[in-house]
């Protein structure tokens, strides 16, 4: 990797990071999909994260996820949301990277499992913060919602990656 490629990589990481933040913001603006579980979202920024892993590399995706989980709550929400978003995002990203390396599952399944684990970790964090087991009643709902929403974003990511123009796919080779 030469100097120009490093600069290119930084630029692409920044571009994709800003894209995840914009998608995260737009998702905060749309009304909740399930009114009774208003915290459940599809998580469209996951599409950008999967794209980052495949087209750029693992380091870029780790940086993107950490900065995204810090910036969205600080800019648009409540700083306490960092406690919910950061551990869940990082752990589900590492799970996703592990599953990508194993190469057993397809992209939709990897995304679904990661989303489900992400939601489960947030419930565990909610339990640790509030100290009541009442939150665990949400666990079946959020893990099911994670499976479904992760499948949706995974299938979108699959089509995004397979339909990416070749000149963009070539970027992959710069970051080996």
């Amino acid at each position, binding site marked *: 990797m030469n100097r120009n490629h490093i600069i290119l990589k930084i630029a692409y990481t920044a571009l994709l990071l800003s894209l995840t933040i914009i998608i*995260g913001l737009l*998702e*905060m603006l749309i*009304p*909740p999909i399930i*009114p*009774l579980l208003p*915290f*459940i*979202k*599809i*998580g469209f*920024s996951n599409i950008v994260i999967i794209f980052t*892993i*495949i*087209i750029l*590399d*693992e380091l870029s995706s780790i940086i993107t996820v950490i900065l995204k989980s810090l910036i*969205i*709550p600080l800019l648009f*929400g*409540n700083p*306490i*949301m960092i406690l*919910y*978003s950061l551990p869940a995002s990082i752990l589900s990203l590492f799970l996703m990277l592990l599953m*990508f*390396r194993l*190469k*057993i*599952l*397809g*992209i*939709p*399944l990897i995304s*679904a499992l990661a989303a*489900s684990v992400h*939601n489960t970790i947030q*419930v565990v964090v*909610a339990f640790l913060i509030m100290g*009541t087991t*009442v*939150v665990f*009643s*949400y*666990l*079946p709902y*959020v*893990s*099911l919602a994670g*499976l479904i929403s992760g*499948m949706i974003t*995974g*299938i979108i990511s*699959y089509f995004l*990656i*397979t339909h990416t123009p070749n000149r963009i*796919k070539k970027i*992959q080779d710069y970051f*080996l």
Partner: protein
Amino acid sequence: MNTTSKNIKYKKHYLTARPFGLFDILLILILLTISIILVIVFIPSVQGEFVEVYHNGKMIEKIDLSLNKNYTYDIDGEIIVEIKDKTARVVSNNCHSQICVQTPPISKVGEKIICAPKKFVIVVANNQEMYITG
């Protein structure tokens, strides 16, 4: 440089790999079944303290379950919510389906009565707030 070469392999692999193998389909079916069974098994059992009233996905009122009282909402006609003996039910609604009126009284956290045509929902809750982010 060993990890780097692994990276190349899986990145190239996922550019062309099929989205679903047989294993993927089996796994998602098993996981969906397990989570649906869990959703069914964990039927709410905690006594609630409040009834939250939603319209169009927004909470419009929070009713205390311990007061016996009727609450009237005007959403394309009257909807009357009755609170009695720590349970809540919809006693009257001028919509044609009448599903909400037929729904049995609710009292446990997470239980809800939904009037889909009017996008009107009441749900039992207690004092905890949740902040879950995406």
